[in-house]
């Protein structure tokens, strides 16, 4: 058997100590993020409508942050993609809503009548919305003031006309978010874009995430669905990670080079005959 003398042991011990101290030094020198640092993603959504050349910010649309990669959440993404699309116009046509109401909602991309104030021209004159006229008449009877009846118009609209489409969308959204949270075991974060199409996901830990709008967004006569994967690395902490996304066909020279992800677009289905 090979004998080990005391000299060898001393050298080995010294060597090990040196290695250990080196390891400690390396770990200590590795740049670490600030203890309370969290990453921020600045999402910018710039879209073009039809054959327009200038892209604009997609305002007031929700985007969601889902933990995990696209591969890990394949079934979830399929659920998003396979969701039956019903356009706002078709929903309201299905209810038998007036064309004037459908136009009024479309004018500000409204999912419900809460979206903007009903103005006097919307209840009187040629462009008046019949549903609004009926609600104002009921309100006037109830409150004794036509002005108040107009301002409080939504309280005298039927539930479906008032916010039926929005609630239908929410119902689907809640179910899909629940599915995502059950799959990933992590709460889905959501933000809404501002008027410039910018939104921030804050307080993020390193990891892989999916950014999605879950429900396809109506842009003109098409519906855009974004599902893309991003990675937040440890070195991204305490910084802001800008991500520019768009829909197909965005050739705006201000943005085209920086676009990271493009949506999948579908033509909105035709409304079923009533």
């Amino acid at each position, binding site marked *: 058997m090979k004998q080990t003398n005391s000299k060898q042991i001393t050298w080995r011990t010294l060597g090990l100590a040196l290695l250990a101290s080196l390891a400690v030094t390396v770990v200590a020198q590795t740049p670490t993020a*600030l203890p309370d*640092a969290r990453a*921020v993603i*600045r999402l910018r959504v710039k879209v073009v*409508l*039809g054959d*327009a050349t200038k892209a*604009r*910010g*997609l*305002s*007031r*649309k*929700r985007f969601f942050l889902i933990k995990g990669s696209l591969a890990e959440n394949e079934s979830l993404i399929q659920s998003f993609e396979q969701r039956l699309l019903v356009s706002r116009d078709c929903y309201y046509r299905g209810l038998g809503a007036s064309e004037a109401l459908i136009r009024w909602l*479309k*004018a*500000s*991309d*409204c*999912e*419900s009548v*809460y*979206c*903007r*104030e009903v*103005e006097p021209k919307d209840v009187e004159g040629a462009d008046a919305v019949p549903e609004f006229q009926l609600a104002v008449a009921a309100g006037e009877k109830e*409150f*004794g003031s036509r002005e*108040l009846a107009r*301002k*409080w118009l*939504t*309280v005298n609209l039927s*539930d479906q006309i*008032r*916010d039926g489409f*929005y609630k239908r969308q*929410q119902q689907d959204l809640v179910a899909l978010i629940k599915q995502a949270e059950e799959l990933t075991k992590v709460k889905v*974060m*959501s*933000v*809404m874009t*501002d*008027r*410039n199409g*910018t*939104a*921030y996901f*804050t307080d993020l830990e390193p990891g892989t995430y999916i950014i999605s709008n879950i429900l396809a967004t109506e842009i*003109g006569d098409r519906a855009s669905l974004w599902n893309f994967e991003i990675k937040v690395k440890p070195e991204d902490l*305490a*910084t*802001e990670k800008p991500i520019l996304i768009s829909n197909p066909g965005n050739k705006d020279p201000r943005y085209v080079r920086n676009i990271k992800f493009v949506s999948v677009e579908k033509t909105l289905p035709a409304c079923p005959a009533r």
Partner: protein
Amino acid sequence: MSGSVKPTRVSSNRAMKHYKVILFMLAPMALAFIICPQQFSGSGEVAGQRRGTRKVAAPQAARKAPIDYSKFSHATKQHQEACKSCHKTPTANWDKVREFPDVADYPDHDACVRCHRQQFFKGVQPVICTVCHVKTSPRDDARLAFRNPAAPQQFTIEFPHDKHQDVIASLRWRPKSDRAVNTFFVKSAHVLDDKKQNYYNCEICHVANTKALAAPATGWLDGYAPAIDTFKAAPDGHASCFNCHWKSQEPIRNNCGGCHKLANAPFVLPASHERKSIKFRHEGGGEKRTHAVPPTECTSCHINITKSATLRGLKPDVPITGCTECHNKSGIRQDLNKELASLDQDKKFVCSYCHTSNVGKLDPPASHYVVAERRALKRKDLK
């Protein structure tokens, strides 16, 4: 037989003696029980209090303190019936004091008298009347403002910003012509050339503050008195609630608990506001009011408000990038860079462009250095 009698008498005498002893012992106890029954009626708690110190006995004294009927509390168990058992919505006076149907007055006398008859008719000036009435007099029925601004708040408000943000206006799309099929962007919901802001946004509830700002007890720090419109106002009534939540859209007017949650204890809203960047004016931004007008909008800076489901723990959440998009942009302004450069020159420099000295004398946070594209520094590391 006789032989058996004697021992019996002896034992009978002994038994008699025992009875007497027991009787003498029990009699004073029975007497004491008759005279002071309360001393024996209590639980261990009372016994404990008797054995304990004065401090232990104090809570009993507190419990026995007379009820102050000049103060009404919704936290009292008997006051926690359905809200509509006392409050009417709307109250009969709404059209005299409000521009919309509202809960604008205290409940009727019946709501109090049905339990507090005794207090209601106690003396010439029953103290219970002062809960609602300005004067305690049968000849004067003037009531305090409802709700009484001088009284502490008893409820916190539950308001999901996220849900409300969902339903306000989006981009404005308009047909190229009224009959055209194709549409294109004309302008967005809050553009400059909108003559009126008819589009719903945060300003439905948060208009510019118009009330005078109360200086802190110690005076304004550094002598900097913020302008009134430094802050936004928050709703203090139902004006921006009932227009949608009157009927059918829950929580409706009778479902008070849908928004009002009983606080753990009454509280007074702070008279002055706390802000890290007290010098930022919501209605400011120079002559063009760039803080208040498009393309800036509330969510451009308050980046987390659209995901906030509750008011609890709500923070302003304004990242430095919200400021530096204009205030540290080459060709426009270099306000942050200038401050950091001054700090490089003098480590005792107090940042004062946005902050008063309570914040300005601290180390700039790492986020400020990130935006300035510099390595983060601490004052102690500067020469």
